[in-house]
């Protein structure tokens, strides 16, 4: 067992699970989507991205790309949230909530790809 691999796998799976936890629920119901969960998803995603830095293999490059996509989507979701509350001042409307959740849904898709690559890599190892 390799500690580095454990940490790497932990953060990738954790990013996907947190993302899923935020995404699940009615798309336009603010009660089903907790802001702290979004925050945690963003932080764990960022850490997962940094962990993928500096890998020169083809798989490493795809890993990094999926993480960057997830970061982008989640940060966009957070920005929409901040904008509706503080700039637009309309409060969390059903429309704003559904756009936030759909953005996080995109990030979830990228995270799922990341997990699939991780599993494929593990299966190919045969050790």
């Amino acid at each position: 067992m390799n500690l580095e691999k454990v940490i790497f796998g932990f953060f990738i799976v954790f990013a996907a699970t947190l993302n899923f936890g935020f995404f699940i629920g009615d798309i336009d119901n603010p009660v089903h989507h907790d802001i702290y969960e979004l925050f945690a998803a963003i932080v764990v995603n960022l850490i997962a991205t940094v962990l993928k830095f500096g890998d020169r293999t083809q798989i490493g490059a795809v890993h990094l790309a999926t993480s960057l996509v997830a970061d982008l989507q989640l940060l966009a979701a957070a920005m929409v949230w901040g904008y509706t509350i503080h700039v637009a001042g309309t409060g969390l409307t059903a429309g704003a909530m559904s756009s936030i959740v759909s953005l996080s849904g995109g990030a979830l898709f990228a995270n799922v790809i990341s997990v699939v690559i991780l599993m494929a890599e593990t299966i190919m190892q045969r050790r």
Partner: protein
Amino acid sequence: MDAGSTPTSTIFLVLRRLRPPLIVLIVIFAVSVLGLTLVPGPPDANGAIQRLSFFHATYFFSYTATTIGFGEIPYAFSEQQRLWVTLCIYLSVIGWAYTLGTVFAMLQDKNFLNAVAVQRFSRQVRRLREHFFLVCGYGETGRLICKALDELGYRAVVIELDEAKVGDLELQSYSADMPALCADAGKPDTLIFAGLTSRYCRGVIALTNDDNTNLAVAIAARLLAPALPALCRAEHADTVANMASFGTRHIINPFEKFGEYMALALHSPAAYNLLLWLTGLPGTTITRHREPPRGKWVLCGYGSFGKVMTEALENADLPVSIIDRAPPADPAHTWVKGDGTGTEALRAAGIADAVGIVAATGNDVNNLSIVVTARELNPRLFTVLRQNQVANRALFDAFESDFAMVPSEIVSHECLAILTTPLLAPFLDTVRHADSAWAKTLLDELTGRFGWDVPAVWSVAINLPQAPSVYRMLMRHEQPLRLTDLLRTPVTDRPALPCRALLLLREGDPPRLLPDDEQEIRLGDQILFVGSERGRKDLALTLFNGHTLKFVLTGQDSPSGLVWEWLAARRQAREAARA
């Protein structure tokens, strides 16, 4: 990481090293922001406890962590919030200090600097859009070669192991920028970065002081760029044999070369002087030597150079006494034990009735000591001195020996002659084997005309790229072109060009040595010229410019440009009609 990694790997190295500090920064940021949203703030107007939203917390912490510090926004904080912020400030300072420390340590890291240098160097080489030579080893010889290449208008790419010498190269004021890399030339990757496989590379010159590295360069050049001429220095006989076994084009052994010079000087002094004059470094003047006398010789130091010299002298039927600490392998030689720096050994070797002495040890101070002592015993001695270090030049100049053997100069002369004028080598071979009367006539004729300064020696091929105007003229089959017609200066009265054709090569014919003025020029001819630098430039103008060629051939200035050509044609027609 070494010079063998690909250039893009620098960025990966940076990213890999930045992983821990970036993660630390993200964690500190996340913990601080999360804490700020949880810590109770002051009560609002209704008495309810306020909390910072994520938006405000991120905003506040962004300017606090970057030490901008706008103050407590959006409202004055509660005591609990201040407590938490104090903690966060110290955390963020630690985070930044750690990140900056890692970045600076990386910037000073030898591997990182090396990776950046390799990347910059290979980019420089890739962007070269003119022909260049790859020089491995920037020692004394390398410096002479680079200087001469620069004067001749060629670029050079240098690989050198010693950092100090690379620094020295940057201080030299060459007219063109010479990319240099501090790396081991024996590694094929380094050679590829330096443009071995580039289509602009014209030749590889291996001059390091390590025979094994030169060998490695030779084989890399043979396998990776078989069409390129490779010039390799080799000092040991087994290296020479090894290089020759896989077909290295030019192997230069300075000792053997000097032995050949010595043999030539003994056999035909005029031919020797002619050779020196033709292969000298550009911008220097040849000093003529006293002719080596015939008689008994004394040789001190029977090493690899001593062996070559003994052979050269014995081939000329001159008796040689050897002074060395160890007996020579061949017992047929007269041998005196000693090191030659004292009078006893010299006397025992018969210095009193000798005509010449060769100081061939590997130690410059000993060599000087030998010849000074020997001259005191016999003032008319002809002295041949081996100089090992260029740094000792002042001492050797002060002594004024008859012959000085400086390996770096011999190698650089030979390299330049081979690289810049490919036709010179066959001509020099002829000079080496010609009889001395012929060489003397030629030498007197040439030096009488051009002086003892090293002349310009260049070769011209009559083809489209090198002589477009002559090529077009010959393609039209108008009239046969003789050498004397072409070799004229494009000024009024068309005086003869200050240059002389030495050799004419034509496919299918034996080489024509010293072609006379009436020699006809045909397409595909290759001609070797010697002359002044001005003659070379004028000839180049004639070969490239159709109008100059016409003027040189007919003495008439032809009009150029559509309008003037049309006017001239009209005038000619009118004159013809009047006649």
